[in-house]
Protein backbone atom coordinates (compact mmCIF):
# COMPACT_ATOMS: atom_id res chain seq x y z
CA UNK A 1 0.00 0.00 0.00
CA UNK A 2 2.77 2.33 0.88
CA UNK A 3 4.35 2.04 -2.57
CA UNK A 4 1.03 2.74 -4.23
CA UNK A 5 0.61 5.69 -1.93
CA UNK A 6 4.01 7.09 -2.91
CA UNK A 7 3.26 6.63 -6.61
CA UNK A 8 -0.01 8.40 -6.01
CA UNK A 9 1.73 11.31 -4.34
CA UNK A 10 4.28 11.47 -7.13
CA UNK A 11 1.49 11.49 -9.69
CA UNK A 12 -0.18 14.32 -7.85
CA UNK A 13 3.13 16.06 -7.60
CA UNK A 14 3.82 15.90 -11.31
CA UNK A 15 0.32 16.87 -12.25
CA UNK A 16 0.04 19.56 -9.60
CA UNK A 17 3.33 21.41 -9.43
CA UNK A 18 6.05 21.41 -12.10
CA UNK A 19 4.59 20.38 -15.39
CA UNK A 20 1.30 22.08 -14.75
CA UNK A 21 3.06 25.37 -14.09
CA UNK A 22 5.15 24.90 -17.23
CA UNK A 23 2.04 23.99 -19.19
CA UNK A 24 0.21 27.03 -17.93
CA UNK A 25 3.08 29.38 -18.75
CA UNK A 26 3.44 27.90 -22.21
CA UNK A 27 -0.29 28.11 -22.77
CA UNK A 28 -0.35 31.72 -21.65
CA UNK A 29 2.56 32.64 -23.91
CA UNK A 30 1.06 30.96 -26.96
CA UNK A 31 -2.41 32.33 -26.33
CA UNK A 32 -1.01 35.83 -25.83
CA UNK A 33 0.90 35.57 -29.09
CA UNK A 34 -2.22 34.52 -30.93
CA UNK A 35 -4.30 37.27 -29.35
CA UNK A 36 -1.68 39.91 -30.14
CA UNK A 37 -1.66 38.86 -33.80
CA UNK A 38 -5.44 39.10 -33.93
CA UNK A 39 -5.40 42.45 -32.14
CA UNK A 40 -2.77 43.88 -34.49
CA UNK A 41 -4.82 42.91 -37.55
CA UNK A 42 -7.93 44.45 -36.03
CA UNK A 43 -6.04 47.62 -35.11
CA UNK A 44 -4.62 47.92 -38.63
CA UNK A 45 -8.01 47.54 -40.21
CA UNK A 46 -9.38 50.13 -37.78
CA UNK A 47 -6.58 52.59 -38.56
CA UNK A 48 -6.99 52.19 -42.30
CA UNK A 49 -10.76 52.54 -42.20
CA UNK A 50 -10.58 55.41 -39.73
CA UNK A 51 -7.90 57.23 -41.73
CA UNK A 52 -9.86 56.79 -44.93
CA UNK A 53 -13.02 58.10 -43.27
CA UNK A 54 -12.97 61.67 -44.66
CA UNK A 55 -12.22 60.45 -48.19
CA UNK A 56 -14.94 57.80 -47.97
CA UNK A 57 -17.53 60.29 -46.79
CA UNK A 58 -16.51 62.80 -49.46
CA UNK A 59 -16.11 60.57 -52.53
CA UNK A 60 -17.86 57.33 -51.59
CA UNK A 61 -17.41 54.41 -53.95
CA UNK A 62 -16.85 56.79 -56.89
CA UNK A 63 -13.29 57.15 -55.56
CA UNK A 64 -12.52 53.61 -56.68
CA UNK A 65 -13.22 54.38 -60.31
CA UNK A 66 -12.04 57.99 -60.49
CA UNK A 67 -8.61 58.00 -62.07
CA UNK A 68 -7.25 61.53 -61.45
CA UNK A 69 -4.84 62.19 -58.59
CA UNK A 70 -4.29 65.90 -58.12
CA UNK A 71 -3.37 67.09 -54.61
CA UNK A 72 -3.45 70.80 -55.66
CA UNK A 73 -7.06 70.63 -56.75
CA UNK A 74 -7.98 68.18 -54.02
CA UNK A 75 -9.08 65.67 -56.57
CA UNK A 76 -8.27 62.08 -55.69
CA UNK A 77 -9.24 58.77 -57.20
CA UNK A 78 -8.02 55.20 -56.84
CA UNK A 79 -8.83 54.12 -60.39
CA UNK A 80 -5.37 54.45 -61.82
CA UNK A 81 -3.64 52.74 -58.93
CA UNK A 82 -6.15 49.94 -58.99
CA UNK A 83 -5.69 49.57 -62.73
CA UNK A 84 -1.90 49.46 -62.43
CA UNK A 85 -2.02 46.97 -59.58
CA UNK A 86 -4.44 44.64 -61.33
CA UNK A 87 -2.74 44.79 -64.73
CA UNK A 88 0.83 44.36 -63.47
CA UNK A 89 -0.28 41.46 -61.25
CA UNK A 90 -2.19 39.92 -64.14
CA UNK A 91 0.93 40.06 -66.32
CA UNK A 92 2.89 38.41 -63.52
CA UNK A 93 0.28 35.71 -63.09
CA UNK A 94 -0.03 34.94 -66.80
CA UNK A 95 3.71 34.53 -67.12
CA UNK A 96 4.59 33.00 -63.76
CA UNK A 97 1.85 30.36 -63.58
CA UNK A 98 2.92 28.19 -66.54
CA UNK A 99 6.59 28.85 -65.86
CA UNK A 100 6.32 28.12 -62.15
CA UNK A 101 4.34 24.92 -62.71
CA UNK A 102 6.91 23.83 -65.30
CA UNK A 103 9.74 24.40 -62.84
CA UNK A 104 7.72 22.56 -60.18
CA UNK A 105 7.18 19.61 -62.55
CA UNK A 106 10.83 19.55 -63.46
CA UNK A 107 11.98 19.58 -59.85
CA UNK A 108 9.22 17.37 -58.49
CA UNK A 109 8.77 14.78 -61.22
CA UNK A 110 11.52 14.81 -63.79
CA UNK A 111 14.85 15.93 -62.37
CA UNK A 112 17.22 13.42 -60.82
CA UNK A 113 17.58 13.68 -57.03
CA UNK A 114 20.99 15.29 -57.47
CA UNK A 115 19.72 18.07 -59.74
CA UNK A 116 16.73 18.51 -57.46
CA UNK A 117 18.99 19.00 -54.45
CA UNK A 118 20.92 21.77 -56.19
CA UNK A 119 18.30 23.61 -58.22
CA UNK A 120 15.49 23.38 -55.66
CA UNK A 121 17.21 25.52 -53.01
CA UNK A 122 18.27 28.01 -55.69
CA UNK A 123 14.65 28.51 -56.69
CA UNK A 124 13.74 29.04 -53.06
CA UNK A 125 16.58 31.54 -52.68
CA UNK A 126 15.08 33.57 -55.50
CA UNK A 127 12.07 34.06 -53.24
CA UNK A 128 14.39 35.23 -50.47
CA UNK A 129 15.94 38.07 -52.50
CA UNK A 130 14.74 41.34 -50.91
CA UNK A 131 12.27 43.10 -53.15
CA UNK A 132 14.31 46.30 -53.16
CA UNK A 133 17.14 44.34 -54.77
CA UNK A 134 14.81 42.78 -57.32
CA UNK A 135 13.59 46.28 -58.14
CA UNK A 136 17.16 47.55 -58.33
CA UNK A 137 18.00 44.80 -60.80
CA UNK A 138 14.80 45.67 -62.65
CA UNK A 139 15.98 49.27 -63.10
CA UNK A 140 19.55 48.63 -64.17
CA UNK A 141 19.15 45.39 -66.20
CA UNK A 142 15.55 44.51 -66.96
CA UNK A 143 14.21 47.96 -67.92
CA UNK A 144 16.92 48.75 -70.53
CA UNK A 145 16.64 45.27 -71.98
CA UNK A 146 12.87 45.54 -72.18
CA UNK A 147 13.07 49.05 -73.69
CA UNK A 148 15.58 48.11 -76.38
CA UNK A 149 14.57 44.59 -77.26
CA UNK A 150 11.34 43.21 -75.83
CA UNK A 151 9.01 46.18 -76.24
CA UNK A 152 10.12 47.14 -79.77
CA UNK A 153 9.83 43.52 -80.82
CA UNK A 154 6.35 43.07 -79.37
CA UNK A 155 5.27 46.43 -80.81
CA UNK A 156 6.59 45.44 -84.21
CA UNK A 157 5.08 41.98 -84.23
CA UNK A 158 1.82 42.56 -82.36
CA UNK A 159 1.46 46.35 -82.57
CA UNK A 160 -2.05 46.04 -83.98
CA UNK A 161 -3.14 44.97 -80.47
CA UNK A 162 -3.51 48.23 -78.45
CA UNK A 163 -1.74 46.88 -75.36
CA UNK A 164 1.51 46.62 -77.34
CA UNK A 165 1.72 50.34 -78.14
CA UNK A 166 4.67 52.60 -78.78
CA UNK A 167 7.49 51.94 -76.29
CA UNK A 168 9.23 54.62 -74.22
CA UNK A 169 12.99 54.99 -74.08
CA UNK A 170 13.38 54.32 -70.34
CA UNK A 171 11.72 50.95 -70.18
CA UNK A 172 10.06 51.98 -66.92
CA UNK A 173 6.53 50.84 -67.62
CA UNK A 174 3.58 48.81 -66.49
CA UNK A 175 4.96 45.96 -68.59
CA UNK A 176 8.34 46.03 -66.86
CA UNK A 177 6.56 46.14 -63.51
CA UNK A 178 4.67 43.02 -64.55
CA UNK A 179 7.92 41.27 -65.52
CA UNK A 180 9.54 42.24 -62.22
CA UNK A 181 6.57 40.86 -60.33
CA UNK A 182 6.79 37.68 -62.42
CA UNK A 183 10.26 37.18 -61.04
CA UNK A 184 9.00 37.58 -57.51
CA UNK A 185 5.95 35.34 -57.88
CA UNK A 186 7.73 32.62 -59.86
CA UNK A 187 9.67 31.02 -56.99
CA UNK A 188 6.55 30.93 -54.82
CA UNK A 189 4.53 29.04 -57.41
CA UNK A 190 7.50 26.85 -58.38
CA UNK A 191 8.45 25.82 -54.84
CA UNK A 192 4.88 25.24 -53.66
CA UNK A 193 3.84 23.26 -56.72
CA UNK A 194 7.03 21.19 -56.55
CA UNK A 195 6.17 20.25 -52.96
CA UNK A 196 2.68 19.29 -54.09
CA UNK A 197 3.92 17.18 -56.99
CA UNK A 198 6.18 15.31 -54.58
CA UNK A 199 3.12 14.30 -52.53
CA UNK A 200 1.43 12.48 -55.41
CA UNK A 201 1.32 8.85 -54.24
CA UNK A 202 3.81 6.59 -55.95
CA UNK A 203 1.05 4.00 -56.50
CA UNK A 204 -0.82 6.39 -58.75
CA UNK A 205 2.09 7.34 -60.98
CA UNK A 206 3.25 3.72 -61.12
CA UNK A 207 -0.28 2.63 -61.98
CA UNK A 208 -0.41 5.11 -64.82
CA UNK A 209 3.04 4.17 -66.07
CA UNK A 210 2.07 0.49 -66.02
CA UNK A 211 -0.72 1.33 -68.46
CA UNK A 212 1.78 2.37 -71.09
CA UNK A 213 1.42 6.07 -70.37
CA UNK A 214 4.19 8.43 -71.42
CA UNK A 215 5.68 10.80 -68.87
CA UNK A 216 3.53 13.64 -70.17
CA UNK A 217 0.41 11.47 -69.97
CA UNK A 218 1.23 10.57 -66.38
CA UNK A 219 1.64 14.26 -65.56
CA UNK A 220 -1.49 15.37 -67.35
CA UNK A 221 -3.64 12.44 -66.28
CA UNK A 222 -2.53 11.86 -62.70
CA UNK A 223 -0.05 14.39 -61.29
CA UNK A 224 -1.83 17.61 -62.28
CA UNK A 225 -5.42 16.48 -61.56
CA UNK A 226 -4.56 15.20 -58.08
CA UNK A 227 -2.75 18.44 -57.19
CA UNK A 228 -4.86 20.94 -59.15
CA UNK A 229 -6.52 22.58 -56.15
CA UNK A 230 -3.23 22.95 -54.29
CA UNK A 231 -1.53 24.43 -57.33
CA UNK A 232 -4.42 26.87 -57.69
CA UNK A 233 -3.93 27.89 -54.06
CA UNK A 234 -0.22 28.40 -54.74
CA UNK A 235 -1.07 30.63 -57.70
CA UNK A 236 -3.46 32.67 -55.56
CA UNK A 237 -0.77 33.08 -52.89
CA UNK A 238 1.58 34.31 -55.62
CA UNK A 239 -1.10 36.73 -56.76
CA UNK A 240 -1.33 38.05 -53.21
CA UNK A 241 2.38 38.75 -53.23
CA UNK A 242 2.17 40.53 -56.59
CA UNK A 243 -0.79 42.71 -55.61
CA UNK A 244 0.83 43.93 -52.42
CA UNK A 245 4.37 44.53 -53.66
CA UNK A 246 5.37 48.19 -53.24
CA UNK A 247 9.10 48.76 -53.46
CA UNK A 248 10.10 46.76 -56.53
CA UNK A 249 7.12 48.04 -58.46
CA UNK A 250 7.81 51.61 -57.38
CA UNK A 251 11.30 51.31 -58.81
CA UNK A 252 10.31 50.11 -62.26
CA UNK A 253 6.77 51.30 -62.96
CA UNK A 254 7.80 54.85 -63.86
CA UNK A 255 5.24 56.81 -61.83
CA UNK A 256 3.10 57.83 -64.77
CA UNK A 257 -0.40 59.24 -64.55
CA UNK A 258 -3.56 58.29 -66.32
CA UNK A 259 -4.88 54.98 -67.54
CA UNK A 260 -3.65 53.84 -70.91
CA UNK A 261 -4.20 50.61 -72.76
CA UNK A 262 -0.55 50.77 -73.79
CA UNK A 263 1.39 48.55 -71.36
CA UNK A 264 4.66 50.17 -72.43
CA UNK A 265 3.86 53.52 -70.80
CA UNK A 266 4.84 54.49 -67.26
CA UNK A 267 2.05 53.90 -64.81
CA UNK A 268 1.42 53.61 -61.11
CA UNK A 269 -0.10 51.11 -58.69
CA UNK A 270 -1.72 51.15 -55.26
CA UNK A 271 1.10 49.94 -53.03
CA UNK A 272 3.93 51.99 -54.57
CA UNK A 273 1.83 55.15 -54.58
CA UNK A 274 1.00 54.74 -50.91
CA UNK A 275 4.66 54.10 -50.10
CA UNK A 276 5.86 57.12 -52.04
CA UNK A 277 3.20 59.75 -51.34
CA UNK A 278 2.95 59.03 -47.64
CA UNK A 279 6.46 60.41 -47.14
CA UNK A 280 5.44 63.92 -48.23
CA UNK A 281 1.67 64.22 -48.32
CA UNK A 282 0.14 67.38 -49.73
CA UNK A 283 -3.24 68.94 -49.06
CA UNK A 284 -6.00 66.46 -48.33
CA UNK A 285 -3.87 63.60 -49.63
CA UNK A 286 -3.65 61.54 -46.45
CA UNK A 287 -7.28 60.33 -46.28
CA UNK A 288 -7.08 59.48 -49.97
CA UNK A 289 -3.93 57.44 -49.35
CA UNK A 290 -5.72 55.63 -46.56
CA UNK A 291 -8.53 54.93 -48.99
CA UNK A 292 -6.02 53.42 -51.42
CA UNK A 293 -4.70 51.31 -48.55
CA UNK A 294 -8.22 50.20 -47.76
CA UNK A 295 -8.77 49.07 -51.35
CA UNK A 296 -5.50 47.12 -51.24
CA UNK A 297 -6.34 45.61 -47.87
CA UNK A 298 -9.76 44.44 -49.04
CA UNK A 299 -8.26 42.84 -52.15
CA UNK A 300 -5.60 41.05 -50.12
CA UNK A 301 -8.06 39.81 -47.51
CA UNK A 302 -10.27 38.43 -50.25
CA UNK A 303 -7.26 36.73 -51.81
CA UNK A 304 -6.32 35.21 -48.48
CA UNK A 305 -9.82 33.85 -47.95
CA UNK A 306 -9.92 32.44 -51.47
CA UNK A 307 -6.55 30.72 -51.05
CA UNK A 308 -7.67 29.24 -47.75
CA UNK A 309 -10.88 27.95 -49.28
CA UNK A 310 -9.12 26.33 -52.21
CA UNK A 311 -6.52 24.75 -49.96
CA UNK A 312 -9.25 23.51 -47.61
CA UNK A 313 -11.10 21.81 -50.42
CA UNK A 314 -7.78 20.34 -51.44
CA UNK A 315 -7.09 18.68 -48.11
CA UNK A 316 -10.59 17.21 -47.96
CA UNK A 317 -10.12 15.83 -51.43
CA UNK A 318 -6.86 14.16 -50.41
CA UNK A 319 -8.22 12.41 -47.36
CA UNK A 320 -11.04 10.77 -49.30
CA UNK A 321 -8.51 8.41 -50.87
CA UNK A 322 -8.87 5.04 -49.20
Amino acid at each position, binding site marked *: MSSIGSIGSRLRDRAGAHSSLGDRVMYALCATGGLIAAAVIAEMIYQVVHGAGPAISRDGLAFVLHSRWNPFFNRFGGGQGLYGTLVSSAIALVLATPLGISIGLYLGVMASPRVRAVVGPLVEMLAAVPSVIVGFWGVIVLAPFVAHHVEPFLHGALGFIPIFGTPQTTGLSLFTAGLTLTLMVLPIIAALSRDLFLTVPRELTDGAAA*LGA*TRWEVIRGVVLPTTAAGVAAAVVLGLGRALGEAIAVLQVIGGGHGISRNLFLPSDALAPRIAQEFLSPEGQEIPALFYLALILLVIELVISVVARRIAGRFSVHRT*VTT
Partner: protein
Amino acid sequence: MSAHGGELAGERAPEVAARLRLHGQPVAGAGDRRLDAEPARETVFEIRDVAVHYGSSQALGWTTLDIHRHEVTAVIGPSGCGKSTFLRSLNRMNDTIPNFRLEGEVLYRGHDLYAPATNRVEVRRRIGMVFQKPNPFPKSIYDNVAWAPRNLGMRAGLDERVERALRHAALWDEVKDRLKQSALGLSGGQQQRLCIARAIAIEPDVLLLDEPASALDPIATASIEELMHTLKHRYTLVIVTHNMQQAARVADRTAFFALDLSGSQRVGTLIEYAPTRTLFTNPSDPRTRDYITGQFG
Protein backbone atom coordinates in the same frame (compact mmCIF):
# COMPACT_ATOMS: atom_id res chain seq x y z
CA MET B 1 0.65 -9.01 -81.28
CA SER B 2 3.38 -10.23 -83.58
CA ALA B 3 2.32 -7.62 -86.12
CA HIS B 4 3.48 -4.97 -83.69
CA GLY B 5 6.59 -6.88 -82.76
CA GLY B 6 8.87 -4.79 -84.92
CA GLU B 7 8.20 -1.72 -82.82
CA LEU B 8 10.11 -3.25 -79.99
CA ALA B 9 13.68 -2.60 -80.84
CA GLY B 10 16.59 -4.77 -79.96
CA GLU B 11 15.49 -7.74 -82.05
CA ARG B 12 17.79 -10.66 -81.73
CA ALA B 13 17.65 -14.41 -81.87
CA PRO B 14 16.73 -15.83 -78.48
CA GLU B 15 19.73 -17.33 -76.86
CA VAL B 16 18.89 -20.81 -75.84
CA ALA B 17 21.90 -21.15 -73.62
CA ALA B 18 19.82 -21.72 -70.56
CA ARG B 19 21.88 -21.96 -67.44
CA LEU B 20 20.86 -24.96 -65.50
CA ARG B 21 23.25 -24.52 -62.68
CA LEU B 22 22.83 -22.03 -59.95
CA HIS B 23 25.45 -21.72 -57.26
CA GLY B 24 26.53 -25.22 -58.15
CA GLN B 25 23.09 -26.73 -57.73
CA PRO B 26 20.83 -27.72 -60.57
CA VAL B 27 17.60 -25.75 -60.75
CA ALA B 28 14.86 -28.26 -61.14
CA GLY B 29 12.65 -27.63 -64.09
CA ALA B 30 14.35 -24.51 -65.41
CA GLY B 31 14.71 -24.89 -69.13
CA ASP B 32 13.90 -28.54 -68.84
CA ARG B 33 11.70 -29.13 -71.85
CA ARG B 34 10.84 -32.68 -70.89
CA LEU B 35 8.61 -31.38 -68.15
CA ASP B 36 6.37 -29.66 -70.68
CA ALA B 37 3.34 -31.77 -71.36
CA GLU B 38 2.65 -30.01 -74.66
CA PRO B 39 5.87 -29.42 -76.56
CA ALA B 40 4.37 -26.83 -78.92
CA ARG B 41 3.60 -24.38 -76.12
CA GLU B 42 4.34 -20.79 -77.05
CA THR B 43 6.91 -18.98 -74.96
CA VAL B 44 6.24 -15.35 -74.01
CA PHE B 45 9.17 -14.60 -71.73
CA GLU B 46 12.57 -16.16 -71.81
CA ILE B 47 14.45 -14.97 -68.77
CA ARG B 48 18.11 -15.66 -69.20
CA ASP B 49 20.60 -15.34 -66.37
CA VAL B 50 18.89 -12.31 -64.95
CA ALA B 51 20.38 -10.70 -61.86
CA VAL B 52 19.12 -7.50 -60.29
CA HIS B 53 21.15 -5.15 -58.15
CA TYR B 54 20.08 -2.09 -56.21
CA GLY B 55 23.31 -0.21 -55.82
CA SER B 56 25.80 -2.57 -54.20
CA SER B 57 23.23 -5.03 -52.89
CA GLN B 58 21.95 -7.82 -55.06
CA ALA B 59 18.22 -8.43 -54.90
CA LEU B 60 17.87 -11.26 -57.35
CA GLY B 61 20.34 -13.99 -58.19
CA TRP B 62 20.94 -15.40 -61.65
CA THR B 63 17.52 -16.53 -62.73
CA THR B 64 16.61 -18.46 -65.84
CA LEU B 65 13.10 -19.53 -66.71
CA ASP B 66 10.48 -19.49 -69.46
CA ILE B 67 6.93 -18.20 -69.15
CA HIS B 68 4.31 -19.67 -71.44
CA ARG B 69 1.41 -18.11 -73.24
CA HIS B 70 -2.12 -18.46 -71.86
CA GLU B 71 -0.91 -19.88 -68.62
CA VAL B 72 -0.93 -18.58 -65.09
CA THR B 73 2.58 -18.59 -63.72
CA ALA B 74 2.82 -18.08 -59.99
CA VAL B 75 5.86 -16.80 -58.16
CA ILE B 76 5.95 -17.82 -54.51
CA GLY B 77 8.47 -17.54 -51.72
CA PRO B 78 9.11 -15.90 -48.37
CA SER B 79 9.24 -12.14 -47.90
CA GLY B 80 12.24 -10.38 -49.38
CA CYS B 81 13.14 -13.19 -51.74
CA GLY B 82 12.98 -11.02 -54.84
CA LYS B 83 9.52 -12.04 -56.08
CA SER B 84 8.32 -8.51 -56.73
CA THR B 85 11.68 -7.42 -58.06
CA PHE B 86 11.49 -10.27 -60.53
CA LEU B 87 7.95 -9.40 -61.56
CA ARG B 88 8.67 -5.70 -61.96
CA SER B 89 11.64 -6.54 -64.12
CA LEU B 90 9.30 -8.04 -66.67
CA ASN B 91 7.79 -4.67 -67.65
CA ARG B 92 10.57 -2.39 -66.55
CA MET B 93 8.75 -0.97 -63.58
CA ASN B 94 12.02 -1.02 -61.65
CA ASP B 95 13.58 1.54 -63.96
CA THR B 96 12.68 4.51 -61.79
CA ILE B 97 14.30 3.04 -58.69
CA PRO B 98 17.65 4.75 -58.15
CA ASN B 99 20.69 2.54 -58.75
CA PHE B 100 18.61 -0.27 -60.24
CA ARG B 101 20.76 -2.47 -62.46
CA LEU B 102 19.80 -5.62 -64.35
CA GLU B 103 22.18 -8.14 -65.82
CA GLY B 104 21.25 -10.89 -68.21
CA GLU B 105 18.41 -10.85 -70.67
CA VAL B 106 14.67 -10.61 -70.43
CA LEU B 107 13.40 -11.70 -73.81
CA TYR B 108 9.79 -10.93 -74.53
CA ARG B 109 8.74 -12.80 -77.66
CA GLY B 110 12.34 -12.70 -78.72
CA HIS B 111 12.90 -9.01 -78.03
CA ASP B 112 15.36 -7.92 -75.40
CA LEU B 113 13.33 -5.71 -73.07
CA TYR B 114 16.48 -4.08 -71.72
CA ALA B 115 18.11 -3.34 -75.07
CA PRO B 116 19.07 0.36 -75.23
CA ALA B 117 16.60 1.13 -78.01
CA THR B 118 13.63 -0.55 -76.35
CA ASN B 119 10.81 1.85 -75.65
CA ARG B 120 9.62 1.13 -72.13
CA VAL B 121 6.31 2.88 -72.71
CA GLU B 122 5.64 0.40 -75.49
CA VAL B 123 6.76 -2.44 -73.24
CA ARG B 124 4.24 -1.47 -70.55
CA ARG B 125 1.50 -1.02 -73.07
CA ARG B 126 1.85 -4.76 -73.90
CA ILE B 127 2.77 -5.97 -70.45
CA GLY B 128 0.28 -4.55 -67.98
CA MET B 129 0.50 -4.64 -64.24
CA VAL B 130 -1.84 -4.82 -61.27
CA PHE B 131 -0.38 -3.79 -57.93
CA GLN B 132 -0.65 -5.07 -54.42
CA LYS B 133 -2.63 -2.12 -53.16
CA PRO B 134 -5.60 -1.19 -55.34
CA ASN B 135 -4.63 2.11 -56.93
CA PRO B 136 -7.56 3.48 -58.91
CA PHE B 137 -7.11 7.04 -60.11
CA PRO B 138 -9.19 9.67 -58.32
CA LYS B 139 -11.49 9.79 -61.33
CA SER B 140 -14.82 8.25 -62.22
CA ILE B 141 -15.10 4.50 -62.74
CA TYR B 142 -15.58 5.08 -66.46
CA ASP B 143 -12.59 7.40 -66.74
CA ASN B 144 -10.36 4.98 -64.88
CA VAL B 145 -10.94 2.39 -67.58
CA ALA B 146 -11.10 4.83 -70.49
CA TRP B 147 -7.97 6.76 -69.55
CA ALA B 148 -5.33 4.51 -71.09
CA PRO B 149 -7.30 3.75 -74.29
CA ARG B 150 -7.78 7.50 -74.78
CA ASN B 151 -4.05 8.06 -74.40
CA LEU B 152 -3.41 5.44 -77.04
CA GLY B 153 -5.90 6.95 -79.45
CA MET B 154 -8.43 4.11 -79.13
CA ARG B 155 -11.34 6.52 -79.16
CA ALA B 156 -13.58 4.61 -81.53
CA GLY B 157 -16.12 2.53 -79.63
CA LEU B 158 -14.77 3.65 -76.29
CA ASP B 159 -18.03 2.91 -74.45
CA GLU B 160 -18.03 -0.65 -75.74
CA ARG B 161 -14.38 -1.03 -74.85
CA VAL B 162 -15.00 0.13 -71.29
CA GLU B 163 -17.97 -2.19 -70.93
CA ARG B 164 -16.02 -5.13 -72.32
CA ALA B 165 -13.11 -4.52 -69.97
CA LEU B 166 -15.42 -4.23 -66.97
CA ARG B 167 -17.26 -7.39 -68.00
CA HIS B 168 -14.03 -9.33 -68.38
CA ALA B 169 -12.99 -8.11 -64.96
CA ALA B 170 -16.34 -9.37 -63.58
CA LEU B 171 -17.23 -5.89 -62.36
CA TRP B 172 -19.74 -4.68 -64.93
CA ASP B 173 -22.91 -5.78 -63.14
CA GLU B 174 -21.84 -4.05 -59.95
CA VAL B 175 -20.93 -0.70 -61.47
CA LYS B 176 -22.94 -0.32 -64.68
CA ASP B 177 -25.38 2.08 -63.02
CA ARG B 178 -22.72 4.31 -61.49
CA LEU B 179 -20.00 4.60 -64.09
CA LYS B 180 -19.77 8.35 -63.53
CA GLN B 181 -19.19 8.04 -59.80
CA SER B 182 -15.75 8.19 -58.24
CA ALA B 183 -13.79 4.98 -58.27
CA LEU B 184 -12.67 5.76 -54.73
CA GLY B 185 -16.18 4.91 -53.50
CA LEU B 186 -15.79 1.25 -54.49
CA SER B 187 -14.83 -1.48 -52.02
CA GLY B 188 -11.27 -2.77 -51.99
CA GLY B 189 -12.15 -5.87 -54.00
CA GLN B 190 -14.07 -3.81 -56.52
CA GLN B 191 -11.19 -1.35 -56.79
CA GLN B 192 -8.79 -4.18 -57.52
CA ARG B 193 -11.07 -5.57 -60.22
CA LEU B 194 -11.33 -2.05 -61.60
CA CYS B 195 -7.55 -1.96 -61.79
CA ILE B 196 -7.65 -5.24 -63.68
CA ALA B 197 -10.30 -3.82 -66.01
CA ARG B 198 -8.17 -0.73 -66.50
CA ALA B 199 -5.20 -2.90 -67.40
CA ILE B 200 -7.05 -5.12 -69.87
CA ALA B 201 -8.86 -2.21 -71.54
CA ILE B 202 -5.81 -1.65 -73.71
CA GLU B 203 -5.68 -5.35 -74.60
CA PRO B 204 -2.22 -6.15 -73.33
CA ASP B 205 -0.51 -9.40 -74.08
CA VAL B 206 0.63 -10.14 -70.55
CA LEU B 207 -0.80 -9.20 -67.17
CA LEU B 208 1.55 -9.07 -64.21
CA LEU B 209 -0.15 -9.23 -60.81
CA ASP B 210 1.85 -8.32 -57.72
CA GLU B 211 0.08 -9.93 -54.76
CA PRO B 212 -3.23 -8.70 -56.14
CA ALA B 213 -5.34 -10.18 -53.36
CA SER B 214 -3.16 -9.61 -50.32
CA ALA B 215 -5.07 -6.48 -49.29
CA LEU B 216 -8.47 -8.07 -49.84
CA ASP B 217 -10.90 -10.11 -47.75
CA PRO B 218 -11.48 -13.83 -48.54
CA ILE B 219 -14.60 -13.24 -50.65
CA ALA B 220 -12.92 -10.58 -52.79
CA THR B 221 -9.88 -12.84 -53.04
CA ALA B 222 -12.03 -15.70 -54.32
CA SER B 223 -13.52 -13.47 -57.00
CA ILE B 224 -10.04 -12.33 -58.13
CA GLU B 225 -8.86 -15.95 -58.29
CA GLU B 226 -11.91 -16.98 -60.25
CA LEU B 227 -11.24 -14.11 -62.59
CA MET B 228 -7.73 -15.32 -63.24
CA HIS B 229 -9.03 -18.67 -64.50
CA THR B 230 -11.04 -16.88 -67.18
CA LEU B 231 -8.45 -14.23 -67.96
CA LYS B 232 -5.77 -16.75 -68.81
CA HIS B 233 -7.69 -17.73 -71.94
CA ARG B 234 -7.06 -14.24 -73.28
CA TYR B 235 -3.86 -13.18 -71.60
CA THR B 236 -0.70 -14.57 -70.16
CA LEU B 237 -0.68 -14.07 -66.41
CA VAL B 238 2.20 -13.89 -63.98
CA ILE B 239 1.18 -13.58 -60.34
CA VAL B 240 3.32 -12.99 -57.32
CA THR B 241 1.75 -14.30 -54.15
CA HIS B 242 2.89 -15.14 -50.67
CA ASN B 243 -0.14 -17.38 -50.35
CA MET B 244 0.77 -20.91 -51.38
CA GLN B 245 -2.82 -22.11 -51.48
CA GLN B 246 -3.56 -19.31 -53.91
CA ALA B 247 -0.71 -20.40 -56.16
CA ALA B 248 -1.93 -23.99 -55.99
CA ARG B 249 -5.45 -22.89 -56.91
CA VAL B 250 -4.73 -20.58 -59.82
CA ALA B 251 -1.36 -21.36 -61.34
CA ASP B 252 -0.38 -23.76 -64.09
CA ARG B 253 3.26 -23.39 -63.24
CA THR B 254 4.91 -22.17 -60.09
CA ALA B 255 8.31 -20.73 -59.44
CA PHE B 256 9.65 -20.91 -55.93
CA PHE B 257 12.14 -18.24 -54.87
CA ALA B 258 14.03 -18.14 -51.61
CA LEU B 259 16.94 -16.34 -50.05
CA ASP B 260 20.19 -18.07 -50.75
CA LEU B 261 23.69 -17.27 -49.61
CA SER B 262 25.85 -15.80 -52.36
CA GLY B 263 29.22 -14.90 -50.91
CA SER B 264 28.33 -12.93 -47.81
CA GLN B 265 25.02 -11.60 -49.16
CA ARG B 266 21.63 -13.19 -48.97
CA VAL B 267 20.20 -13.03 -52.45
CA GLY B 268 16.76 -13.88 -53.80
CA THR B 269 17.21 -17.02 -55.84
CA LEU B 270 15.04 -19.24 -57.99
CA ILE B 271 15.02 -22.60 -56.27
CA GLU B 272 12.56 -24.56 -58.33
CA TYR B 273 10.27 -23.98 -61.27
CA ALA B 274 7.79 -26.66 -62.26
CA PRO B 275 4.18 -27.37 -63.13
CA THR B 276 2.20 -26.39 -60.05
CA ARG B 277 1.01 -29.92 -59.34
CA THR B 278 4.54 -31.28 -59.48
CA LEU B 279 5.94 -28.51 -57.34
CA PHE B 280 3.38 -29.00 -54.64
CA THR B 281 3.16 -32.79 -54.65
CA ASN B 282 6.64 -33.85 -55.58
CA PRO B 283 9.14 -31.04 -55.15
CA SER B 284 12.63 -31.97 -56.18
CA ASP B 285 14.45 -29.50 -53.95
CA PRO B 286 14.37 -30.03 -50.18
CA ARG B 287 14.03 -26.26 -49.65
CA THR B 288 10.84 -26.25 -51.69
CA ARG B 289 9.50 -29.14 -49.68
CA ASP B 290 10.32 -27.37 -46.42
CA TYR B 291 8.60 -24.22 -47.57
CA ILE B 292 5.38 -25.78 -48.86
CA THR B 293 5.07 -27.99 -45.81
CA GLY B 294 5.46 -24.94 -43.61
CA GLN B 295 8.91 -25.67 -42.22
CA PHE B 296 10.12 -22.12 -42.85
CA GLY B 297 9.05 -18.82 -44.32
